[in-house]
């Protein structure tokens, strides 16, 4: 792999991208502490799940004492976006010089933030350098987020609950702004709007299943609205 491209990825991540995740995972660490998750588990969830919505479900479901299967189904459905994200990115990265396992490592390093920047950056990068660039970029994001989770956890007492949630929200808000100009804009806008309505409504029907029910009903509603008449 290209060492220069890797280092370039590291440099480009060590700025605004890392700073926004630092804030978000400070908030997540504090929330995890408030819900009684042990510190090592909270930090490990950042590396192993590496998706803020899935991690919030993991923490919330634990606090609600939800059944194991319900938690796993909810996390799984919240992570479904990784399929279209990976599908969109892979054709841009595939190169004869790479090994298959390198793509499967890349899949674990992928996040909404890394994906957003990669989609914007790849057209200016030679194909052979993209994988190394992404490794460097994503590793900085994972490391920053893991350290921030620990820092937020330890400093939870000094953060008001409102500030903790505000920090967590900065991340999706920031990327929603970036994504607003994305290719699949109509899908994103309709899906997000329908989900924002269906999610809270589903909570009144069944709190434990609200993530699943809200996502399926809101997503299907968005899909039906999208279809040409």
């Amino acid at each position, binding site marked *: 792999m290209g060492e220069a491209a890797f280092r370039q990825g590291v440099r480009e991540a060590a700025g605004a991208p890392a700073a926004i995740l630092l804030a978000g995972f400070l908030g997540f660490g504090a929330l995890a502490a408030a819900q009684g998750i042990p510190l090592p588990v909270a930090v490990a969830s950042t590396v192993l799940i590496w998706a803020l919505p899935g991690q919030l479900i993991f923490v919330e479901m634990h606090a609600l004492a939800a059944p194991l299967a319900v938690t796993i189904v909810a996390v799984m459905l919240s992570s479904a976006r990784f399929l279209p994200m990976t599908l969109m990115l892979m054709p841009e990265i595939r190169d004869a010089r790479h090994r298959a396992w390198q793509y499967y490592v890349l899949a674990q390093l992928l996040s909404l933030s890394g994906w957003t920047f990669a989609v914007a950056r790849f057209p200016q990068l030679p194909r052979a350098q993209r994988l190394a660039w992404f490794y460097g970029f994503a590793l900085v994001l994972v490391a920053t987020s893991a350290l921030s989770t620990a820092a937020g956890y330890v400093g939870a007492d000094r953060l008001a609950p409102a500030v903790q949630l505000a920090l967590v929200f900065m991340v999706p808000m920031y990327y929603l702004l970036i994504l607003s100009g994305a290719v699949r804009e109509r899908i994103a806008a309709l899906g997000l709007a329908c989900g924002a309505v269906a999610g809270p409504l589903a909570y009144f029907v069944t709190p434990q299943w609200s993530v699943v029910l809200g996502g399926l009903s809101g*997503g299907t509603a968005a899909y039906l609205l999208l279809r040409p008449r």
Partner: protein
Amino acid sequence: MDLWLLLALCGLATYLWRGAGVLVSSGIDAKSEVFTWVSCVAYAIIAGIFAGALALWLLKL
């Protein structure tokens, strides 16, 4: 219940989509209807989670 086991299963549940994306990326039509529906549901779930948490946050203020 062992929290580490739950975390491992949650990590696996997330990786399922990531790995599947790599596996089928060479053979799937990115413009198919199923793909569109999956994207809609994925976005709706993300928005639902954050809308719910936002509502709870506003109630606490």
